[in-house]
């Protein structure tokens, strides 16, 4: 596979955390390739290092060892400001808890518009098509607290997709949703991937895994 086919790549990344009882290795020399336009899933049991790996790819953390590349560039050596820019312009990030992805003080459209503005794209152009594509046309001006968990997570997905990021990084996007809502989110992710959006999801939800193009399995911080 050509390097240009990869939107993200991890090479031998290791991440350790200090705890009162000593050092814990969350990731141990893990490699990961995320193919452009593919729906890639990182699966594994709780504590296997999925979220840690996604955090490294999403510029939310730095590895102790190894390289993390986005579009072929090593993001581990970038400064805070540049990494912030990478997050803003290149990545769409979805967190497990729906409410953690949205600003309470704004409505659904406001949240999407806010992210669009942050990315420097045309907010008016983004809001309705993105929310509409996720079946949220009727929820445009509803406050976040008035939305169901599934709706909130789809709005979060809309926020992540606003401005067409290079890579969508979703950490356990269905973890706190019921089956029906989870189904909505999975369909939305699949649709995005089918539209050419690169998607990287960490999950142990079998339905998400089933919808993926590629699955990477982690256990105790190692790839299996």
């Amino acid at each position: 596979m050509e390097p240009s086919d990869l939107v993200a790549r991890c090479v031998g990344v290791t991440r350790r955390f200090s705890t009162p009882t000593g050092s814990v290795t969350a990731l141990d020399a893990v490699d990961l390739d995320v193919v452009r336009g593919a729906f890639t899933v990182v699966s594994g049991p709780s504590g296997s290092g999925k979220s840690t790996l996604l955090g490294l790819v999403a510029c939310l953390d730095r590895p102790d060892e190894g390289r993390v590349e986005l579009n072929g560039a090593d993001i581990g050596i970038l400064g805070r400001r540049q990494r912030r820019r990478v997050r803003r312009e290149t990545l769409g990030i979805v967190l497990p808890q729906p409410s953690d992805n949205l600003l309470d003080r704004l409505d659904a459209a406001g949240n999407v518009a806010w992210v669009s503005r942050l990315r420097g794209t045309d907010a008016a152009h983004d809001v309705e098509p993105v929310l509409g594509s996720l079946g949220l046309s009727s929820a445009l001006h509803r406050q976040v607290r008035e939305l169901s968990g599934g709706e909130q997570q789809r709005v979060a997905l809309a926020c992540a997709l606003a401005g067409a990021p290079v890579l969508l990084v979703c950490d356990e996007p269905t973890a706190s949703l019921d089956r029906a809502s989870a189904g909505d989110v999975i369909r939305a992710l699949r649709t995005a991937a089918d539209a050419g959006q690169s998607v990287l999801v960490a999950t142990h939800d079998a339905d998400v895994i089933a919808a993926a193009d590629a699955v990477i399995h982690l256990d105790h911080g190692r790839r299996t």
Partner: protein
Amino acid sequence: MAASCALLGVCVAGGPLYVSSAATESVQLQLADICLSDVAVHLPYGPDPFVVAALDHAYATLRQVQDPIVTASVTATYSLAETPKVRRKLVLINRQGQAEQFDPTLPTLADNTVLMPDYLLTTGEYTPGSTELMIQEPPAFQIGSDGQMEPLPDPAPVSMLMVGTYPTIPVRPEPAFWCGWRKELRPNSRGDLPPPVVFANVATISQFNFASGDWEVQPAPDGMTRDDAHAFQRRQDAAVDQFATELGVPDLVAFRQQFAPLSGMGILADRADTVSDLVGKTMAPVRLAGVAVSLLVLCASGVMVARERRRELRLIAIRGGGPAASMPALVRSMALPTIGGAIVGLGLAVLGVRTLGPTPEMETGPLRFAVLSAVVGGLVALAVVTAVTALAGDREVDARPRRIAWRHVPFELIVPALAVAAWVRLDQVGGVRLVGTKARGGDLMAQSFPLLALATPVAILVRPLRALVRRMRHLGRRLPDAPRLGLRRAVAEPLMAAMVVLASAFAAGCLVLSTTLLVSAEQQLVDKATTFVGSDLSVRIIDDIEMPAGLADRATIVGRVTGTVDGMPVSILAIDPATFTGAVHWKADPELADLPALVERLGASGDRAGVIVVGDVPESFDLVGRTRGVSVPVDVIARLDHFPGFTNGTPMVVIDRSVAEAGDLGPFGTTVWVRDPPADAVQLLRDAGARITNEALRVEDVFDVTSFRAVRWSYSALGAFGVFVAFVVFMMQILAIDARRQRRQAAHVLMRRMGFGRRRLIVAGLVEVSIPLILGVAFGVLMGVTVAEASVRRLDTLRQLRPPSVVVVDVGSIVAVAIGTVVAVALLTLLTVVSTTRAEPLEVMRGTV
């Protein structure tokens, strides 16, 4: 947030208001202490309409003044019909409103009738209603044709009838109405009475060529601020100029020199400026520390806000928004509490200074500056809190691993280093002090020593104490469960526990230090004043007297004369051993503990007399009286650091007066020293025949009253800072209790089922809260006293005077600190227990509280 901004508001606004209040109180004290005539506007008065109009215009220029008082007077000579050749001086006077100064009011005088002081009746020469005075002016002069001054013919005497007397006007002090005429009322330096002041009406006085009129406008002292005093001075100058211009005075400069300097208001206001300078300099470290602590609290508040709004800030950071992206929302939500808090702080500062400061009067300028400071402080607070919150929020994600372990760098050593530098500086320049009307010494670094010395152990002990507390996690294994729980909770968060202990210590230290400095400074001034005066009262007299019975057990007569020892000047103090120890303060002075025994050893033994010396002189020497050059061989029987009556750096030799007189060391200047004098002590001396040469010197009058007040005002600010830190510690504890609330509630829901009831919870809370506070306060009291020991001598405002200052610990302040600690422990325990138990178990278990 609002509370921390209010703290900042109090700090930035309180400082200038307090300093201004001290200056204004200085003006008030001076006005209460001085003669208002001395600071009044004086202009020449004449009955001509254009003069009266000019005076009216001048009066209109003035503000905050009383009604004018016009005084007509003339100095002349008089003779009585029985003794026409004996001419005596008198002062004829008519001071507007003088009749009303007496009870009963004096009668209205007809032309050419006079009232004389009633003390003259004792001479038997005057009979009211029949004594006729022939009053004559001194001859006037004119420039003759040869250009020389030549006398005009003697003016004809004017006959005046003495129609009565008025009660003699007391002197030293004179009544406020007469204080401007003290020169005419007081005996001269030899104790001789002055020419009589005789009352007549204006027409009677006006017939004399040399009659003069004085137009006097006194300030209205009530509520007069320093600004008002300066304004009074400016308006006085303007009034004098306007009067001179209106009357066409040719030499304006000379006119100004004659009339403008009469007012001491400028000097008074300058002195108030000096006091404010002194208070400002002394307070500067406290103000700086107050602002620093407020900013620290603000930063801590920012971190807490960031924690509270963590979800939103983290989301902004995840989406790639920097601190700038989160700021608009933060500014919107925090503008009201920060600016509002600063304004509340301003209000508290105004209220605090008005109620607890030197005076409730407020100057407009500092008030305006305080408002501006509070607004700027509020904006700075908003910027700081927003920035800290935004930065803390930004650190929620992608926190770069620390390449440099900053936490291992001992930044805290900066504090002891600064303390050492301040110590050195304080030794060099001394504490801030009043020299004349100027504040000298005590720059910011020097004045910071007490605070830095207090902060040093706090800074040094943070790490070791934290490490120690960390090792105490398993403390109290054998204790019952309630105190064990309290103990372990107290040490559960080592940094927090260490901070509470040390911050409490700092607060208690500030309070104890401020009161110790204050009480010591007060004692120091009394000690120095007593040494300077000799006793509580010192009265110079012309001749020796038989001590009146009312003073016999507490007064002594000492003689002073200058002498030499090996050609070096010394001050000789000749004392009467029999009465000396009863008339001076010595019992509380360790240096003078053996005074009675020492004094008994004075006197001649063989051919050499024993002397006590202060200063550098040989063991045996010939004491030479400077006036007559006669010498007396003496041996030193004791060397002391100070002795009653020691006034300057010149060595002092204390000798038995009988020996000194026998050796002809005099003539001596004679002084009576009185310990614990009755109010009429000076009168008793007069009655005993003493001719008093000058004003009696009292301990309380030796040093300018404002000097000590300024020291008091300065150190009070340190105490206020202690209260401020204590409040911050208290708030910190409350916030910590709130932060631990949910965990406590969850634990309590389970523990309650296991029989851990409210009473045990109270015991646990009491142990948890009291241990760090009590340990901290005890340590702080110790620190406060220790730092005071190191500071008092160096901060001595009168180093040049003996004895050196001593540390006097104010037990009352320690008791107050102890009571405050008990109250704080009780409140915090109550809060801990209530916040833990006031929750629904189901909600607690669901985590929805």
